[in-house]
């Protein structure tokens, strides 16, 4: 594949490549992408060293403060607790989504009849806008007329206001995220399961391996690559979005669900400390680049990129 591509491009030096056919095909997209990614990146770096204030209309003033924002961030307890909440939320959501998603995929793989229909139905939450998921979640757990809080209180499992308690609110936003994104893991894992040769499984069955033994020795080793892809894809998106928590709790009660993107947004658009927010944003960016790095490394290992 690599050699065929080389034959086509007629030149390996980057400088010459940009004027080749391939380079010219990419040029319009690259110019636009540069304008909307490199310029903002440079700007956010500069912002992190400045005090940026909004004036009325289109006015913005800024004053260079050097490392002021950075020094402030490292001693800011609310930022640290935002990251801590983020890590807890991340581990809880992505962890549960992986476990549930893989379990659902295994389940659907075993079901003989209606596999396709079942998977399609399970995928539905993935296409619902996260903001709607949040609003719908609020409706379902509303303490006076929510369906789920009614079920929980009439079975005696949980009475009271779900979004009012720190722990119950955290659990609720985690489960809403899991509801939307476990299907993605299930979909990707199922693609891996389907690609396992049925003869291999059948041979193991004939040899007397029970289901758990087959899972451990055949199924998990053969889907591990795909599962890691699923994990990284989900991780990157988990860092990107914050719509569900934003809608459901807004970070409350008592900051129990105030993950770092919410803290950032509040710093920028409520307290109007845009420069300081940019500093927090750069750290988030660094984390996401780290995960993206892992992702492309795995892709290259699988022979799919670069």
């Amino acid at each position: 594949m690599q050699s065929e591509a080389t034959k086509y491009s007629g030149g390996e030096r980057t400088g010459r490549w940009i004027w080749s056919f391939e380079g010219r095909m990419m040029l319009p997209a690259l110019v636009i992408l540069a304008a909307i990614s490199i310029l903002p990146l440079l700007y956010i770096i500069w912002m992190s060293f400045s005090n940026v204030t909004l004036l009325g209309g289109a006015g913005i003033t800024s004053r260079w403060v050097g490392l002021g924002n950075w020094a402030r961030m490292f001693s800011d307890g609310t930022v640290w607790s935002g990251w801590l909440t983020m890590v807890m939320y991340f581990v809880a959501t992505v962890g549960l989504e992986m476990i549930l998603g893989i379990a659902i995929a295994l389940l659907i793989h075993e079901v003989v009849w209606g596999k396709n229909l079942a998977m399609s139905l399970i995928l539905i939450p993935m296409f619902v806008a996260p903001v709607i998921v949040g609003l719908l979640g609020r409706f379902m757990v509303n303490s006076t007329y929510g369906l789920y809080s009614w079920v929980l209180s009439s079975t005696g499992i949980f009475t009271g206001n779900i979004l009012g308690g720190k722990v119950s609110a955290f659990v609720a936003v985690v489960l809403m995220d899991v509801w939307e994104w476990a299907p993605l893991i299930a979909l990707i894992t199922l693609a891996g399961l389907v690609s396992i040769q049925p003869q291999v499984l059948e041979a193991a069955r004939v040899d007397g391996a029970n289901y758990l033994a087959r899972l451990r020795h055949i199924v998990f080793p053969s889907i591990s690559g795909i599962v890691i892809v699923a994990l990284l894809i989900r991780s990157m998106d988990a860092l990107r979005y914050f719509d569900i928590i934003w809608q459901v709790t807004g970070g409350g009660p008592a900051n129990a669900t105030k993950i770092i993107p919410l803290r950032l947004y509040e710093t920028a658009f409520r307290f109007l400390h845009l420069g300081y927010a940019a500093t927090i944003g750069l750290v988030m960016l660094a984390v996401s680049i780290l995960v993206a790095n892992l992702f492309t490394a795995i892709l290259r290992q699988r022979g799919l990129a670069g």
Partner: protein
Amino acid sequence: MNKNGSARLSGQKIILNALLVVVLLWTLVPIGWMVLSSFKSAADVLSPTPLLTFKPTLANYASLFFGGNNLLSYIRSSILAAGISTIIATTLGCFAGYGLARSSFRGKHHLAFWIISTRMAPIAAVILPFFIGFTFLHLINTIWGLIIAYLSFNLPFAIWIMNAFFADLPPGIEEAARVDGATRFQAFWRVALPLTAPGIVTTAILCLVFSWNDYAFAVTFTGPGSQTLPVAASQLITQTGVNWGQLTAIGTVVALPMVIVGLAVRRYLVRGLTLGAVTGE
């Protein structure tokens, strides 16, 4: 197989199906409840015990479309912002994805990495420089500002996916066209592009879903006249209370089209959502 074995097998079958029912209930009950509630009258929605039987009404939809806050302008903004951004991203993504798939030069993986990391940048971080830039360029409260913001995740996404789809095509197919006298561009346009039609449709649909469902960019960059549907939905929550009937109706309006188009490309979803890393069933 002895009698005992088959009894155990059917027992397993029952457990499997029961588990599947549980999963389906977990998935579908909130959706079903949303759609159901959108047809309830204001009194029925607020019933303290859940109502499964009620007199259905279109009042929620009627007041959304013909009431005080006219939903049509939000729908228009949503369609324009998501649609135009999708068209631009998919078109440029086809060209660039082909270029990327067919080229090999030193540092290609750096270029590929830059493209993907653009897609993965946290929205909360991206919002800041965009907000300042849009303020300078007077793009706040315009559809074009939103289109540009959506390009920041749709364009790199489209390049990656189309790269994966084009990389699957053996270059020999285009070579044959070249032998017949076609230029490089003609070989791309007439031979390679039609062969990736499923990829193009998948790319377009996923771009549409991502931008249609966006809330953070829309609520930050738009104002009256350019606000999109997700913003309209969140505005139904006010200090004085929440109109849950209308809210479930608007939720249905936002979700239904995306569920339909999303499931339409079900076969290629794995490919698209893993950015080409996993080939579908």
